[in-house]
């Protein structure tokens, strides 16, 4: 049982009337992992999470969570999992404490234990002094943390977090990350979706990139980055249209140690074995072709590069995020 995957899907699919939201997802997540599901808006992250949480029946394929089939054994799956959905579903009428106590009750925790558990959780997420306030008075970050706490009342084996830090300020984001790490250290498997590269990079043991309903890359962050190449030399041009980029790529095609080339909107990214050594040669080759780069940037490949390679696009807002 313990080596059985915490989450496994086989050709998991979900079609809404005319939208193929999830188109054959295969996953195998080991117990104790923090697994990241990285993808842009509309990629199918939430739909996948809802299927794994038994909130939405798949229209194809199978999935097990904690060894239990999400359709056949839905009731037992619900006992084993904690869920914090993308839309923070807090009851505005109740106080934070009441909400947690009710949540305990719904998971079969007796009233006396529910009271101490609610207190523990309020302290854990730093809301002990606002526990008596109704949740509608909470800030976004406080709501997120309470929602997270409410997913933990029964110490679930598997925790699902759908974009747990979207819309949070950097400080709150870090609090949530710390929380996730702590929960994970206590033995809980975490399945987390995100649009943030940094989050996937920092927090996740392994991740899958999902785009338009299919997984386009997966592995540990290091593997994914290493797969791209050793170094990346990013070139941009003043006048990227009119075949400049194509011409530049043609000019450097024979470069020694060139591992791959990925075309971007305003330039091209060259993945090379030794970036520092390659730069002079690249400039020389461009010069020979009568081309002149606007900027030349040497870096290690990031998940952003992985995403670009896998989908042909950059993750929206990624640049802003890395700049921040």
């Amino acid at each position, binding site marked *: 049982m313990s080596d059985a995957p915490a989450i496994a899907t086989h050709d998991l699919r979900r079609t809404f009337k005319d939208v193929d939201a999830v188109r054959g997802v295969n996953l195998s997540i080991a117990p104790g992992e923090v697994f990241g599901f990285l993808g842009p808006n509309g990629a199918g992250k939430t739909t996948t999470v809802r299927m794994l949480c038994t909130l939405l029946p798949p229209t194809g394929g199978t999935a097990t969570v904690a060894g239990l089939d999400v359709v056949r054994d839905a009731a037992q799956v619900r006992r084993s999992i904690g869920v914090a*959905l993308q839309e923070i579903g807090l009851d505005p009428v109740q106080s934070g404490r*009441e909400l947690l106590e*009710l949540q305990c*009750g*719904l998971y079969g925790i007796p009233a006396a234990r529910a009271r101490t558990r609610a207190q523990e959780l309020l302290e854990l997420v730093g809301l002990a002094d606002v526990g008596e306030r109704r949740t509608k008075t909470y800030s976004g970050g406080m709501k997120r943390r309470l929602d997270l706490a409410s997913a933990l009342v029964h110490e679930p084996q598997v925790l699902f977090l759908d974009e747990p830090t979207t819309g949070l300020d950097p400080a709150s984001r870090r609090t949530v990350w710390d929380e996730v790490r702590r929960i994970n250290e206590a033995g809980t498997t975490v399945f987390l979706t995100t649009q943030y590269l940094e989050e996937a990079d920092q927090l996740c043991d392994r991740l899958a990139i999902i785009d338009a309903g299919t997984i386009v890359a997966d592995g540990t962050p290091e593997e994914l980055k290493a797969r791209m190449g050793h170094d990346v030399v990013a070139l941009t041009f003043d006048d990227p249209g009119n075949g400049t980029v194509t011409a530049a790529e043609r000019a450097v095609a024979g470069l020694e140690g060139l591992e791959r080339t990925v075309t971007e909107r305003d330039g091209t990214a060259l993945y090379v074995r030794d970036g520092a050594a390659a730069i002079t040669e690249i400039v020389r080759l461009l010069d020979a072709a009568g081309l002149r780069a606007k900027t030349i940037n040497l870096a290690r490949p990031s998940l952003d590069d992985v995403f670009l390679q896998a989908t042909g696009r950059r993750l929206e807002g990624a640049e802003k995020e890395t700049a921040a």
Partner: protein
Amino acid sequence: MTEIALLARRSVREILRYPEATIPGLFIPLFFLAVNVGQVAKTFPSTTPFLHGQGYVAFQLPVSLMFAVATAASGLALVTEIDIGYFDKLLAAPIRRSSIIFGRLAADFVRGLVGSTFVLLAGFAFGAHIEAGPLGAVLLVFLAACFGVGYAGFGVLVALRTRNVQATNTSFLLFFPLLFLSPNFVPFDRLSPVMEALARANPVSYVIDGLRSLVIEGWEWDKLAYCTLVIVGLIAILTTLSLRAIEQYDR
């Protein structure tokens, strides 16, 4: 069972914390009572045979009670919960989905008891008395609250099927034609033949008739039986449909 109690307690809490969702609903029945004392009583003095010696207020008291308990508040609370996403949290918890419905309806029962007691007391203040005695008064409040539960089931059903706040909000409008195609103002036999036929086909008529019999006639077992039958039927049908709706929700 405990999950139902927990969810019911939460819904009661919601009623208490949002009095603005309940209190306005009590103005209509009070207004009804007041109007009947002031104006209509002149048209129907207490010597009118069908009033059995009481004032017209007593005759109209059951209608006021029904207004007091017929609220879409439960459906509205549910559809809001769906909107906010708390409903998903409940669905993801290891509880029976039916508990969510039963929890709500239990709270509606409590709301109905309080609302109809309030209107009954107002009726007393306006000079009505209960011919069937104290036990009759208790039964009156109980039956009215049960009618409220059946009625709430309708709002819950609309909420689950439409997931739309507007639709749920307007669902209570359905109640008005049913209430007015009935022996609401005068007994069956004083209605025009067409109206009488319609009223006799309208199940709500028998609820009014049954509740009214307790107020002005005493213990009329056949009228009470019809009244109970309609209320039980209403609850059974709407609860069944709501349970089916929640079982099929996103399935």
